């Protein structure tokens, strides 16, 4: 069905993948894992010819799909046997009408028009998007767009389905919807499937390893295949290495690595209470009693409609009203809520880049890092980027150098910021904002799209800023990140602020979780049931992280480039010192 032999691809930038050998039987499901930059997406793109036909690269070796050589056929000439779903929902859908979008591949293949209507309806149904027929694509959410794109990928009944991080840009609601749609679509088409996804904990959901393809292929950091086999076997053999390299693994695999054992073994989750009970206490629970650095009173926020409608309707409709909040020195506050509930608008208004529709924001000018770091880039080099907005001079040069060193960017100082990886860009945006030394830091989805180490680095930086006396406010979809960093959580829903609780209070209140469209994972639910307060929840999560990384034999990832500046004295811990499963990690 799919036959890959000796494939090696080197992109123009120097990154690449291979050598890879991979054979798929009809209907076989494969998950490709590997650390960031291992070339997972490049491999996927080689399988349908996007590399090298659309993305220039040097490719050697052989790739054939149902006997057709990919090198000799273009991308379009394989469209009848390969369906592709990419990660960005906005650019994965091309036309304005949902049904036109799904009919488009069939039209291109010359399908008789009479057969297209029923096929479109069936594909939309299989992708859980039947109710979207007749809608315009510019009015759909990310999760809805991704289901329409999935329908367009399966409508031709392809023999091979390529899924490139299909849920990485979605919120919890979208992930759940697309997960169900993927399962149904894979079952209904009988297509072989190659899935690349870095947020496996979210994609696998409560089912754990069982919710993912049955065969796993692991790529090393330099793009070679290191493991290829049944999921449970590969999870056991490669789990520690993947965890050490910063991959997000399904929770049952992560716990199996942390406690030693096999993924999916009953009882793994039962070891959590002991871990929670024995977790070393960390931060001072009195955080957040400091002076108020930023206050909003009676705030109404909203964006003025852009484009033509602005003339007709000059008044903007607020997405949030009657918002009163205070940010105190030393605290980390998380804002959670469904997509489109107004979190980003609130943050932009607090930052002073969007005028409030009503009410006032008082306090010194806050710093802001936006969700997409590229939107904020203004310098030609990494060093120039950090210096933007500072007066030129030797004092600035010193501050820039210090900020670069602190975020592990010194070696990249002369690089073009647009060419950095996602994690590097995120660190750069933090460095460039923090160098301005503003008392309040606002961060819009700062962990979005990052690997495990990248997420840990960002969260440590935010916590470190709070410890240094700043107030930090972040929006976040990732409940585990919220629980491990936030002192307070503001829940945004129904056009207002509906709750101000601690993370544990949020996890224990189903009504709030539903309002914010959040679904705590099994791990969080289990921990929330046994810990006494939010501080202990945070300690337990920190202990689990430390325990898992220790067992994986990884040096503490943040230690090497700890933004708070504390070097890791331990270096690479001895894997033999991994804690005993029933015991309690001591560190």
């Amino acid at each position, binding site marked *: 069905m799919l036959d890959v032999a000796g494939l090696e691809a080197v992109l123009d930038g120097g990154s690449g993948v291979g050598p890879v050998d991979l054979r798929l039987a009809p209907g076989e499901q494969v998950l490709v894992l590997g650390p960031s930059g291992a070339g997972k997406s490049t491999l996927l793109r080689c399988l*349908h010819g*996007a590399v090298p036909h*659309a993305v220039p690269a040097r490719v050697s070796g052989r790739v054939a799909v149902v006997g057709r050589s990919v090198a000799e056929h*273009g*991308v*379009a*000439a394989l*469209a*009848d046997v390969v369906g*592709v779903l*990419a990660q*960005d929902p*906005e*650019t*994965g*859908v*091309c*036309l*304005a*009408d949902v049904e*036109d979008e799904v*009919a*488009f*591949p*069939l*039209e*291109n*293949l*010359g*399908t008789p*028009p009479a057969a*297209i*209507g029923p096929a*479109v309806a069936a594909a939309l149904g299989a992708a859980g998007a039947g109710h979207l027929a007749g809608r315009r*694509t*510019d009015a759909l959410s990310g999760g809805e767009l991704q289901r329409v*794109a999935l329908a*367009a990928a399966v409508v*031709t009944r392809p023999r091979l389905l390529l899924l490139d991080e299909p849920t990485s840009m979605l919120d919890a609601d979208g992930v759940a919807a697309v997960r169900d749609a993927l399962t149904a679509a894979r079952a209904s088409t009988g297509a072989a499937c190659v899935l690349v996804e870095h947020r496996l904990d979210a994609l696998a959901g409560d089912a754990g390893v069982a919710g993912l393809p049955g065969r796993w292929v692991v790529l090393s950091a330099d793009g070679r295949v290191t493991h290829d086999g049944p999921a449970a076997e590969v999870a056991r053999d490669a789990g520690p290495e993947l965890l050490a390299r910063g991959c997000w693994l399904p929770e049952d695999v992560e716990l199996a690595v942390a406690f030693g054992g096999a993924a999916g073994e009953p009882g793994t989750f039962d070891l959590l209470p002991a871990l929670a009970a024995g977790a070393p206490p960390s931060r001072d629970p009195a955080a957040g009693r400091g002076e108020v650095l930023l206050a909003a009173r009676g705030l109404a926020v909203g*964006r003025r409609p*852009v*484009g033509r409608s602005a003339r007709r309707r000059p008044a903007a409709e607020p997405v949030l009203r009657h918002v009163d909040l205070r940010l105190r020195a030393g605290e980390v506050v998380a804002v959670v809520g469904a997509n489109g509930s107004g979190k980003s608008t609130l943050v*932009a208004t607090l*930052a*002073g*880049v*969007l005028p409030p529709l009503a009410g006032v924001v008082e306090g010194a*000018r806050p710093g*802001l890092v*936006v969700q*997409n770091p*590229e*939107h*904020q880039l*203004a310098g030609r080099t990494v060093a120039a980027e950090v210096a933007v*907005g500072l007066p030129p001079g030797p004092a600035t040069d010193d501050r820039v150098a210090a900020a670069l060193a602190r975020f592990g960017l010194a070696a990249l100082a002369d690089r073009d910021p*647009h060419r950095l990886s996602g994690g590097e860009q995120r660190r750069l945006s933090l460095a*460039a*904002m923090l160098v*301005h030394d503003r008392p309040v830091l606002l961060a819009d989805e700062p962990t979005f799209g990052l690997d495990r180490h990248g997420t840990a680095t960002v969260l440590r930086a935010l916590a470190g800023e709070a410890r240094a006396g700043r107030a930090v406010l972040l929006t976040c979809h990732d409940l585990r990140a919220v629980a491990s960093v936030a002192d307070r959580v503001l829940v945004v829903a129904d056009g207002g602020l509906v709750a101000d609780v601690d993370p544990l209070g949020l996890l224990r209140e189903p009504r709030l979780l539903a309002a914010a469209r959040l679904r705590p994972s099994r791990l969080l639910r289990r921990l929330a049931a046994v810990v006494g307060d939010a501080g202990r929840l945070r300690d337990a999560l920190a202990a689990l992280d430390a325990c898992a990384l220790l067992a994986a034999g990884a040096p503490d990832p943040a230690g090497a480039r700890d933004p708070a500046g504390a070097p890791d004295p331990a270096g690479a811990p001895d894997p033999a010192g991994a804690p005993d499963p029933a015991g309690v990690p001591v560190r």
Partner: protein
Amino acid sequence: MTALGARNPTVKLLLVVAVSLATLALLDPAALAALYLLGLAAARWGAGVGGRRLLLAQVPFWTFGVGVLLVNAMSRPGAVLVAGGPFRVTHEGLVVGAALALRGCVIGVATVAFLASTPPRDLMVSLVRHARLSPRYAYALLAGHRMLAGLPRQWATIRAAQQVRAPLGRDGRPHEGWRGLARSAFALLVASIRASERVALALESRGLSSGPRTVWRPVPLGAADAALAAGVLGVLALVVLAAARL
């Protein structure tokens, strides 16, 4: 659906071209004014453009027309109607100026009626089928049109992101000047190029090529379109002939 909305886009496009060509043959303000009134009626009732929107759409053409009229009236030699200081308004200048101004207005209103009654998707489907436009261009244009609609929002997001580090002006608002605008424009350009690469790949991976393809919901071409063409061309011919007789 409006009367013009139901007609074939390729036919309508050809008629807009025909009207534009016909105006080039006319230099009679009365005939052009008649065409303009007919065009306004077609846009208002044929294409269903609301009165206010129709009026607003005329403003650029009127502005252009007033300029053309003034320049011609005051610069063309001929029988002087009014003279004051260095300015002379001639009869010939007034007539030619009015005709040229009305020409612009006729072409403008025909285009407005066309655009208002033609969804982009129908235009492209019809052009591929009835005018042999390559589907590669047609669908790339359609995808580009969809991306274009999202640009204002993206611009606003990027502007806000860039203003965070800008120095504050005297009014307490971030103030960047043209450099800031240029940076934002560059960020938007980078984002747009990346997005268009992904869209192009999505189109191709769905099998878009220049080869033969079918159309699921074709745009019809029928007797009503022939009647529309005959009607419009007939009226044009009448107006041109009447103008030639007088």
